[in-house]
């Protein structure tokens, strides 16, 4: 599956690419996908990640290849709001 097809799946699921931060965000689901995660995922993994329920208000779910450290995670959450 090409990157373009993966991006179409994300966009159909309501995700938008944030140019400055360079990842895909869905503010309703409160989930973030890194470009690296998308590139390295096969369709099944991508769809499975999309299907997981988003976190509760105030938190975000980061779909990264490597989970961010707690301090980086806090920084990201403060940026995303």
């Amino acid at each position, binding site marked *: 599956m090409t990157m*373009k097809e993966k991006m179409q799946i994300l966009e159909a699921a309501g995700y938008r690419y944030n*140019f*400055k931060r*360079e990842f895909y965000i869905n503010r309703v689901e409160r989930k973030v996908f*890194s*470009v*690296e995660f998308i590139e390295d995922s096969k369709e099944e993994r991508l769809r499975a990640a999309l299907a997981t329920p988003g976190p509760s208000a105030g938190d975000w779910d980061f779909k990264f290849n490597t989970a961010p450290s707690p301090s980086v995670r806090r*920084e990201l959450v403060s940026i995303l709001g």
Partner: protein
Amino acid sequence: MADRKPEDWLREEYFVLLPQVRRVVQNLETRVRHELLPLTVHLKNFERIVITSGSKDCESAIDTLRRAQGESKVFDPNRGGTYTLTDLRDLAGVRVLAFPRTRWIEANDLLRAVFSSWESRPMQDPLSKSILVHKYNGYCSSTDQIRAELQISPMLIGQFLDIEHSAIYKPSPELEGAKPMMRDHTNAVFSALQAFDAELERLMQERNST
């Protein structure tokens, strides 16, 4: 006093480094112009070798370092002042644009011989894997702190990359989301420009042999 963020430390560092960066730019550009003299004095009317130089501005340097921080693309606030702009490969840079392709190859051969110890990190065509732009990184004699970048590019590819870089790679709200979507189109442009260069080279060789 509020804790300083990594960006605050880096802004301070930038202005400490700036005089050295400027010396590196001047040093490298002078050397490149000197080394290319055997080529530039013998250019035919339609041939071009253009040499430009510059340094990254403060915010662009910080942004480049930020984007290099793995998938998160943010600085870890716990690391405070441990980040450094001297990790960047291209605080200072010189670029050589050459036309036609044969001049690009000659310019690269001349400069590679002079900067043989510099690290080669060419930009490759994602599809054909052929080299689009030669890139070398290393230190000038004026400082061992600032790494510089020397780019040697075919003129058509270089000018396209200029536009692409300013329109797609620099934050631009109206183009939000455009970068990954443009990848296929960008690759198509690379292929077309390389095909144009190759055909022109073939025609010139054919004309010279008759």
